[in-house]
């Protein structure tokens, strides 16, 4: 096994309704530490399913996912343990509405005994300061704007000190003027060396931040390359027609 890859995916397949709908139809991918990968593609192409299967929120029917050389699709593996190392940010934020921002962030580290309450709160406050929300620590999610909620969701995931961060269309549910503040946080995270996989429609972000862009369609990776290769010299016809529509 190759120790350089943080994530290695082999032949991943996922189908619904006894194979009638193939969401993933054999996906292979290797992700190195510190790499930023942006996944683009038309809706229903399987990009979200693929991202969600990386921490087994979707259980694949076939194939293997190696996380730090451990096959997490193995039934014997304790998936909860591995999910702690994989942060996830959702399109609809999924903050816990009945808890303050601070409690949202400290719940998992404290309950999973990664830190004492004091340590977790100190770390949470530091992270909130980085994203400019330290004065909202005692607020409830409903009192925040969409952009603020998503920034909290990102730092909530960071509280677990993950090795990789997954972003599932993190800006799709935001008002246009709030997209920038979330992308800024993600850019800073990328600059700090975090390994990231991002499903997004923000082509500007992909161009600027991605080390590699992946174009998915019909449950497979159609084309992958540097942003320069994909956006300026796409080879695949599907990639070309998709980019023509969105750019």
């Amino acid at each position, binding site marked *: 096994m190759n120790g350089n890859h943080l994530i290695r995916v082999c032949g991943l397949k996922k189908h619904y309704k006894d194979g009638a709908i193939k969401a993933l139809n054999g996906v292979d991918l290797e992700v190195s530490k510190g790499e930023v990968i942006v996944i683009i593609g038309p809706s229903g192409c399987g990009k979200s399913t693929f991202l969600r299967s990386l*921490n087994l*929120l979707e*259980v694949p029917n076939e194939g293997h996912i190696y996380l730090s050389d451990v096959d997490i699709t193995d*039934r*014997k593996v304790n998936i*909860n*343990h591995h*999910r*702690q190392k*994989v*942060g*996830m940010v*959702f399109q*609809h934020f*999924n*903050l*816990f*509405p*009945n*808890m303050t921002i601070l409690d949202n962030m400290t*719940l*998992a580290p404290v*309950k*999973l005994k990664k830190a004492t309450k004091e340590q977790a709160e100190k770390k949470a406050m530091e992270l909130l300061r980085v994203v400019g929300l330290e004065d909202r620590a005692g607020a*409830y999610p*409903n*009192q925040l704007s969409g952009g603020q909620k998503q920034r909290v969701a990102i730092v*909530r*995931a960071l509280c*677990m000190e993950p090795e990789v961060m997954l972003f599932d269309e993190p800006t799709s549910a935001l008002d246009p003027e709030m997209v920038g503040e979330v992308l800024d946080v993600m850019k800073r995270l990328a600059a700090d060396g975090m390994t990231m996989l991002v499903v997004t429609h923000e082509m500007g972000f992909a161009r600027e931040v991605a080390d590699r862009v992946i174009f998915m369609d019909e449950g497979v990776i159609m084309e992958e390359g540097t942003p320069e290769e994909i956006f300026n010299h796409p080879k695949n016809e599907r990639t070309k027609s998709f980019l023509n529509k969105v750019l």
Partner: protein
Amino acid sequence: MPEWIVKLQKDFITAFVEDNRWKYLVEGIQNTIILTFFALILGVILGVVIAAVRTTYDKQYTEIKNPVGKCFLAVGNWFCKVYLTVIRGTPAMVQILIIFFVIMASSDNKMLCGIIAFGINSGAYVAEIIRGGIMSIDGGQSEAGRSLGLNYVQTMWYIVLPQTFKNILPALANEFIVLLKETAIAGYVGVTDLTRGANIIRGITYQSLFPLLAIAAIYLVMVMFFTWLVELLERRLRKSER
């Protein structure tokens, strides 16, 4: 004084004051409250357990790795479904008669029979209220919890159930009110609840007006008081909603 007022006065005294008959009602209130309270506790315990089995089966069955656990869960789920079907499909009156005259025929503790009968009955409704509440929580909440590394039980306990409780409180209060009023049939198996208290007075005095109006008013006041308590609780729980 008009004659009818004098008659009412006399009837009132016959119904409540003579021979301290008001004590039947006081005893009835006590028994109704005891019966409702313990039946509620039993009902909630049963309801939580059944809702837990049913929800876990629906959400987790495919994820459980241990075949023995899987088997237990499937059997448990089947029992829960049968319980819900039978209890919700038969009248409470019939259930309490069966418990008293068939299942617990050897016991002469009427109150215990009543508590068990009403608890089992209420449990079925509470279970479905809780299950509905759990299902109403956006799936993203438990996904967020699981993605942070919390296991199924932790996610349920810390994230889903607190939100569920707030949502189902009105329905639970409703179920409690129904239960409180339904205990009026406990008299059929000899529990001297509030309604039976009134019936005893009626039997002695041949008067219906005052005893029946009195217990109607007492039930009403009890329900209003309880509704007020629930409103207080709801207001406290809603403080995270701006």
